[in-house]
């Protein structure tokens, strides 16, 4: 079976070789060095069809995703790392070296930008409201009915305004403690919470020295969110997935 090289990310050439298993547990992570840089890679025994199948099976995908992340986490503990998206697979070591050489400037610049930083994720969810009990008495008149409708509409508008206000304040305060920020569209689907709608999906690049303060601000914002029927979830520190594009 042909062996391919799974690439996790790129680090500076001074990084010591890691000693940990790769996504295929039969092979350890190794470094391929070129141009003063090093690519974190490991061999995968899959052929391309088996690999594609593995990435479409939820359990297998989770195993691969966690292994990919574990390797990048270990690297992040030693210095800056440019993480690759899942699925960068090379046929030859020469191909990997060519990539490092061709994109050397972009990798060097990105590593310098990320040094001493990590990514933190913040997702805010609006919890589904428990359905309000129906009015105990039927409307006594048309005027009463219209008044109730109008009051319900006013409440909905006020609640929407509250959500927007909280999200703006949340993003602003977190941005004040971050070096860079990236807001992505909120997500839906089987992996997201079933009891709530995601209303903010943001990533913050935070200096390690500011991480404690960032966490404290997030904790306060989480309490504010909870008071308004929302939930703020913090995750991190992550490799800088959202701040690592090689585009200029």
């Amino acid at each position: 079976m042909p062996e391919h090289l799974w690439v996790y990310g790129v680090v500076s050439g001074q990084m010591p070789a890691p000693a940990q298993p790769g996504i295929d547990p039969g092979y350890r992570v190794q470094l391929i060095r070129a141009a003063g840089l090093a690519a974190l890679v490991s061999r995968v025994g899959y052929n391309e069809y088996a690999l594609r199948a593995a990435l479409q099976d939820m359990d297998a995908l989770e195993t691969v995703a966690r292994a990919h992340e574990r390797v990048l986490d270990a690297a992040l503990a030693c210095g800056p790392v440019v993480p690759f998206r899942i699925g960068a697979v090379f046929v030859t070591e020469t191909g990997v070296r060519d990539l490092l050489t061709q994109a050397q400037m972009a990798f060097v610049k990105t590593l310098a930008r990320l040094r001493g930083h990590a990514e933190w994720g913040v997702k805010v969810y609006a919890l589904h409201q428990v359905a309000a009990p129906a009015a105990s008495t039927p409307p006594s008149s048309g005027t009463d009915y219209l008044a109730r409708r109008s009051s319900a509409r006013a409440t909905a508008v006020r609640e929407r305004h509250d959500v927007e206000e909280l999200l703006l304040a949340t993003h602003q305060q977190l941005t004040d403690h971050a070096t860079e920020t990236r807001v992505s569209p909120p997500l839906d689907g089987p992996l997201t919470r079933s009891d709530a709608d995601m209303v903010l999906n943001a990533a913050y690049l935070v200096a390690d020295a500011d991480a404690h303060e960032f966490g404290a601000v997030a904790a306060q914002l989480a309490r504010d969110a909870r008071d308004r029927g929302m939930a703020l979830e913090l995750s991190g520190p992550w490799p800088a997935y959202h701040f690592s594009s090689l585009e200029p």
Partner: protein
Amino acid sequence: MSEELTPLRDVALVDLIDRLLSGGVVLSGDVTLAIADVDLVHLCLRLLITPVGP
């Protein structure tokens, strides 16, 4: 309950998959990739987490 906000590091698969699919360096097709249609795989995985429509 602790008032510290505990980062959800180990449990949030949605965070991990989101990052591994929408973040990170993507290599364009002209490098020697073994999986030519890895974009197709990503497209399938995308169904697991879809951006909320307008």
